[in-house]
């Protein structure tokens, strides 16, 4: 009986932790996409774009730690580089390049969201 209870407890922990991971990763990356949209709007309206970009960078560095602890993946580094590139473009007033880089960043985030969240094609 003890073994069965232990097994059920472990099962509950695995499923619980897995579900939490899915929800947290999905919500964080959705939030990231929303922030990149806000940055894009700030760029197009020339409204404190650099400040927005710096806030985005700080936010991402903080969230990346918890995301990597839950679901390590090489793409996190690629996304970090993209964020730095956007910041660099904005600092040098390279607005068209910054807008292009933001679109690439959004694509990377969507792709990562798809990879990290459970889908049947990943299982198979």
């Amino acid at each position: 009986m003890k073994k069965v209870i232990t097994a059920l407890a472990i099962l509950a922990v695995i499923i619980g932790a897995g579900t939490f991971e899915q929800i947290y990763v999905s919500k964080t990356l959705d939030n990231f996409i929303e922030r990149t949209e806000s940055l894009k709007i700030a760029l197009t309206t020339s409204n404190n774009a650099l400040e927005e970009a710096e806030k985005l960078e700080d936010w991402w560095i903080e969230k990346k730690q918890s995301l990597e602890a839950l679901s390590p993946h090489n793409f996190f580094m690629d996304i970090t580089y993209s964020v730095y590139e956007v910041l660099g473009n904005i600092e040098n007033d390279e607005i068209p390049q910054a807008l292009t880089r933001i679109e690439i960043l959004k694509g990377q985030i969507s792709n990562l969201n798809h990879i990290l969240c459970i889908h049947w094609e990943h299982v198979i």
Partner: protein
Amino acid sequence: MLTVFIRSIIIYVLLIIVIRLMGKRQIGELQPFEFVITLVIAEVACIPMSDTSIPLSHGIIPIFTLFILHLFITKIAKASVKFRRVLNGKPVIVINPQGIDNKVLDKLDFDINDLLASIRSQGYFSPAEIQYAILETNGKISIMPKAANKAATVGDIKDFVTESEIPYTLICEGKLMQENLELSGIAQVQIDELLNKHSLTVKNTLLLTVNEKTIIYLQPYNAPAIYDKFSEAC
């Protein structure tokens, strides 16, 4: 994590099916689902050990998943004979009083050389000595020899036989086995007297066993064993 969890279940089930299809020869001493666990669990434990880019959870979760699966399959097998048959197969008689059952050997993909090797490992060098040979679900062969080839037993010689008791280990590696002492019905005082008689203590005794409540095997560390009877020793 859930991807790893689901993949572990799928791979485990597939391995069981494949091992069952391979038949009893490949299994050795384990039941099929135990063999699968043995194969897989060492492998998954090693993966995060050798590759630090793989998170530890990718090794831990499959191991726990396999434990959970193993437990539930064991429980179901215990409750259901039909399920047990599907999971493990059933024992098969390969030699009977009429001789070797060739059709059964063909079904099992078991050739004569394998059969002879198996019976030789049990000490029988000819099928003529064997009444029945059964291939168990774990791949081992159990043999019932013919009456003329059976080893003589006490029951064959004597009409009345007294049953033996198992020996109790009372001291093991310098520690007193309290539970065994209570089961044996021997008092602590008797043990102390015995040890004092041989100038020993519990700590410098490697092993003390008693059976029939009198026959002692007393093995000190770095000294010859003492064989004695309790009533005479004390």
